[in-house]
């Protein structure tokens, strides 16, 4: 690899890490707003959304500049493409943090419902998946990425269980219909968060194995 390009790629990776730390902090604040019923925190998440978008734009622009001036091939090319994909996923996770924060106020009186639907558990697993996926990408660790891929089913299952439980709650009490419908959306958002983590983990496996695992759930780990 050209030493100049290597330095630039390293810098880009650093920017991606900074972005992932910001997105993680956004999730942390959104979770606290929701689970501790502190809707005041939500405004902070909304305010920092612009910073996430600024990262997205600057990483895209920087990657494009590198494509144009360095014309990378083979491994470098794949790496640069992957950075774009991961950037795209992080930007969407940032949107999810905002969506979670937006519902903190209306759900503040319904923390019991969140507990019953085991949303906190789901939130924690999805977040660990996201952290592990990013770590696996930044350290090129396919073993860690594979663990992320395996966790996706757990979150899917929790989402389905939450849905069933919430339907039962709605039947039980008319007053719970509206808050329960918000909790359903949140459960969906968390399921999507896990999906984004899975996408990042797939990129890592792709980068390391140089093969497409996307859409071949059974093929993971099989050589």
């Amino acid at each position, binding site marked *: 690899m050209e030493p100049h390009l290597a330095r630039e790629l390293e810098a880009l990776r650093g920017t991606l890490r900074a972005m992932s730390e910001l997105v993680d902090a956004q999730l942390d604040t959104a979770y606290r707003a929701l689970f501790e019923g502190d809707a005041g925190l939500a405004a902070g998440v909304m305010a920092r959304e612009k910073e996430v978008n600024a990262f997205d734009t600057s990483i*895209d622009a920087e*990657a*494009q500049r590198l*494509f*144009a001036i360095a*014309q990378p*091939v*083979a491994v470098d*090319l*794949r790496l640069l*493409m992957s950075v*774009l*994909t991961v950037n*795209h996923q992080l930007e969407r996770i940032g949107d999810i943090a905002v969506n979670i924060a937006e519902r903190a106020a209306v759900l503040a009186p319904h923390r019991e419902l969140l507990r019953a639907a085991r949303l906190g558990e789901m939130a924690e697993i999805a977040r660990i998946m996201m952290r592990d996926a990013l770590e696996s990408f930044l350290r090129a660790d396919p073993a860690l990425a594979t663990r992320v891929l395996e966790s996706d089913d757990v979150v899917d299952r929790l989402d389905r269980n939450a849905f069933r439980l919430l*339907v039962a709650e*709605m*039947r039980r009490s*008319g007053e719970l*219909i*509206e808050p329960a*419908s918000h909790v*359903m*959306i949140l459960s*969906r958002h968390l399921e999507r968060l896990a999906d984004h983590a899975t996408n990042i983990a797939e990129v890592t496996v792709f980068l390391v194995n140089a093969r*497409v695992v*996307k*859409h071949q759930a059974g093929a993971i780990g099989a050589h």
Partner: protein
Amino acid sequence: MQRHFVAELDALKADLIRMCSFAEDAIAESIRALLERRQESAEAVVKNDPRINDLEITIDHAVVDLLALQQPVATDLRFILAASKISNDLERIGDHAVNIAESAAQVAKLPALAPIVDIPRMAQITKGMLRDAIDGFIHSNPTLCRAVLLNDDIIDNLNKKVVGELVALIRRDPAVVDQALEYIRVSRNLERVADLATNIAEEVIFIAEAQVVKHHVERKGEPPA
């Protein structure tokens, strides 16, 4: 420009258009399955989803090949990178159509609910948004894409209205909770499709404006709207 490069770029455009029409078909079919209570339509959507997934992989490969072998610059480079992002969005849209089809299959098993007229309307608008966003991308037409952004607000409002009505319906008649929730899911999935179409439109506008800024040095530093 090399003839080979032009041919590959055209093939990429053709694949994106094909992927977009598959995605549109999937949405139309899943909504038909819902409204006409047709189990076969729902199954067809699920069965056809791999076509969309396969095209995403084809486009991914084409993008890597184009970048590696042709080393495009400027406008072509931006187009190719955007194509990769857009194919990712289209793949998600296919997933949303599958979600709608799954809801349709559930609804078909349950007693019929009074028709929710706003849902076919949402589907109609959303398909139009998707088509305009992709047309705008292929033909570098940011004006077409601006209309997509306006429609996104309409869809957001319709979604809120539909969800509100369905929640009220469940309150009046708890026996319909299962059907009503499936309709809520459908409405949300359509709203997500509109979001993804909006992402595509924004990308096109962003590319167009980046060029404008580049070509008018005095405007540099002004952020895109």
